[in-house]
């Protein structure tokens, strides 16, 4: 059977139909359920750099988009372009490492990759956001709620892939901008992200993430030597919804080498250890209070008679820095001169 993208989606949905009919409904509602989410597998060798996915993305996001023919312009590949406020996904060309630059330009053999939000399973951006504007949804999409956002841009600092863009040009209602995983489209029966739907060369496959991981490994095994033996996104940064297969090493085509744990693990561990049942702050408070109280008993023994024992504004204290003659002369306090 020719396992193309559409067939896979149909199979995936059929499989899901069977699974959901069980008692999965309850777990599917929890955002924390990392296994029950959509994913996309990108087969990098299959990408021909046509950039139709960029066109579809801009159109689906509602931006004014240039005619689709203009996306055939290969000159844009001269620069490494990152996703920005008007283009949630970008395709970049990398020289195939086996060829020289001249050879690559002559025979047009480039490796094309598509950059966009990877919709991490444990997103650092969501952990960073202090008002909860970024959240991982039950279906796997990491979504942004501008109504909550303060525009502090800590999410941009946090993202290990450097994805979120910002409306710096907008003085009044700037937003964080990134791929939405076509949330509305994928929430519908049979829906898929716009980029996946338009891809003419089966470079993108949409389906259940765990099924895609399996598919990716099967593809590596079934075509030995064609792929680097690694599924990028399976474990990086704690695992991402977007997975990648490549014929050249990933770091050569713009993928950062990351650890297999979410960046938020360190910060959350540090925060949770300090606030574990509030013990450390309360203990410090108690310790300082005791020191202050013990000192008070000593001070009471040392100070002179208070003018008003109920009034705690102590006006006189023995103090090596006071000049006794002036105190004794009874100089009064005045108002401001």
């Amino acid at each position: 059977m020719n396992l193309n993208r559409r067939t896979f989606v149909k199979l995936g949905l059929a499989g899901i139909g069977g699974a959901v009919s069980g008692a999965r409904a309850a777990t599917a509602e929890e955002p924390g359920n990392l296994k029950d989410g959509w994913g996309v597998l990108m087969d990098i060798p299959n990408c021909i750099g046509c950039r139709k996915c960029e066109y579809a993305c801009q159109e689906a996001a509602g931006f004014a988009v240039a005619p689709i023919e203009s996306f055939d312009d290969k000159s844009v590949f001269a620069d490494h372009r990152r996703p920005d406020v008007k283009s949630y996904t970008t395709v970049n060309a990398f020289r195939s490492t086996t060829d020289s630059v001249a050879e690559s330009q002559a025979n047009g053999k480039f490796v094309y990759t598509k950059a966009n939000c990877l919709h991490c399973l444990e997103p650092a951006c969501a952990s960073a956001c202090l008002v909860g504007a970024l959240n991982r949804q039950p279906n796997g999409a990491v979504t942004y709620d501008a109504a909550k956002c303060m525009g502090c841009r800590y999410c941009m600092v946090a993202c290990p892939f450097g994805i979120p863009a910002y409306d710096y040009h907008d003085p009044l209602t700037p937003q964080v901008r990134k791929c939405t995983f076509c949330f509305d489209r994928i929430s519908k029966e049979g829906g898929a992200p716009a980029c996946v739907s338009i891809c003419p060369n089966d470079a993108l496959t949409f389906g259940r993430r765990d099924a895609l991981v399996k598919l990716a490994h099967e593809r590596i095994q079934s075509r030995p030597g064609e792929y680097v033996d690694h599924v990028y996104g399976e474990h990086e940064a704690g695992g991402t919804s977007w997975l990648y297969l490549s014929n050249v090493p990933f770091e050569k085509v713009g993928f950062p080498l990351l650890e297999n744990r979410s960046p938020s693990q360190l910060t959350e561990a540090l925060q949770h250890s300090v606030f574990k049942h509030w013990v450390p702050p309360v203990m410090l408070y108690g310790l300082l209070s005791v020191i202050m109280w013990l000192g008070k008993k000593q001070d009471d023994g040392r100070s002179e008679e208070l003018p008003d024992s109920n009034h705690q504004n102590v006006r006189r204290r023995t103090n090596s820095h006071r000049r006794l003659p002036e105190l004794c002369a009874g100089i009064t306090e005045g108002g401001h001169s």
Partner: protein
Amino acid sequence: MNALIHPMPVSAPFRSSGFLVLAALAALGFGFAMYRFIFGLGAATNLGDDYPWGLWKALNVAAGIAVAAGGFTTTAFVHVFRRSAFHAVARPALLAAALGYTFAVIGLIIDLGRYYSIWHPLLPSMWQGDSVLFEIAMCVMSYLTIMYLEFAPVVCEHIMQTEAGSRWSRLALAADRLLSQVLPFLLVAGVVISCLHQSSLGNLMLIAPGKMHSLWFTPVLSLLFLLSAIAVGFPVVIFTMLMTSWSLGRRPDIRLLADLARYAPPLIGLYLAAKVADLVIREQLGLLVAPGLRTVMFHLEMMGGLVIPLALLLSDGVRRNPRWLGAACMMVVLGVILNRLNVFLVAYEPLYAKRTYFPSTAEFAVSVGLIATLMLLYRVVVHYLPVFESTRQERLT
């Protein structure tokens, strides 16, 4: 709590040349801040998708809060540890810290994209407790409130002195009495809250390990931030008091400040030792000789901000000389400011970086303007309110 012998407003001419310079800088900063609000962050700053955080976050917010640590260290020293000999520095330190945090928040408002939503962390429905920034926001909000309450007795005293016998005076007395019951608890809470957020500011950048240079990235960055905040506390208070005395034409109480300065070397030394130990344990000593701007900045921070002032402050002669004491304390303060700039800006290596970030004119103008406004306000407040210990001459007039 307010156990100064004779706190009084400071009488000194207002419109000095220094005052005019500060006013001009403040006005310039205000103008550029308006530019930011009208035309947006993109027009006013050199921020970008590659560098989301810039001078305002690093200097006015992060370094501002670090240097305002003079408030909680002095409060702990004078009120918790009962070193009442230093009461004279408690109010000036508190005022400087309260203004410091206020202007850190103002700087934040200018930097935020959707500044009108800055109140969102007050709503429980928006609390996202895993975020380091969440804890910092809650702590800064509560600590600001505590500092304003701590300062309220100064205002009450002023009202009681100037409006003696009136209804306002009776209200102020009642408020003062109520506050004196509550303040001991708030004071300790303030010290605890300060420790929490001063250290958490160090945790902020740890969410981006891949983007932080190894000279500064360390899992114990929060401890280093806390130790540096404690270390800078007395130097900043001493420096503030020396500067204020100098600008007001008063002689500083050098004996008091010299005695306070005796406590600085152990705290600075502890921070320095922790930094060195961290480099050793992480086996990154080799970075100290790696060529590059970052290495230079690190050495500047260590030598100029820690080693040299530490050596100076160990000397009794330095501590008793106002100029040398001021210089040494200023070096410690600048060193901690440089450390925050290094951690948030210099150490930051974005992925796919095509440029290096350098602040724009507007960013510099706003940063400087905020600092100038803070100094102006400090000057105005000490002129009208009983913050400073009065001089013998002032009491005689």
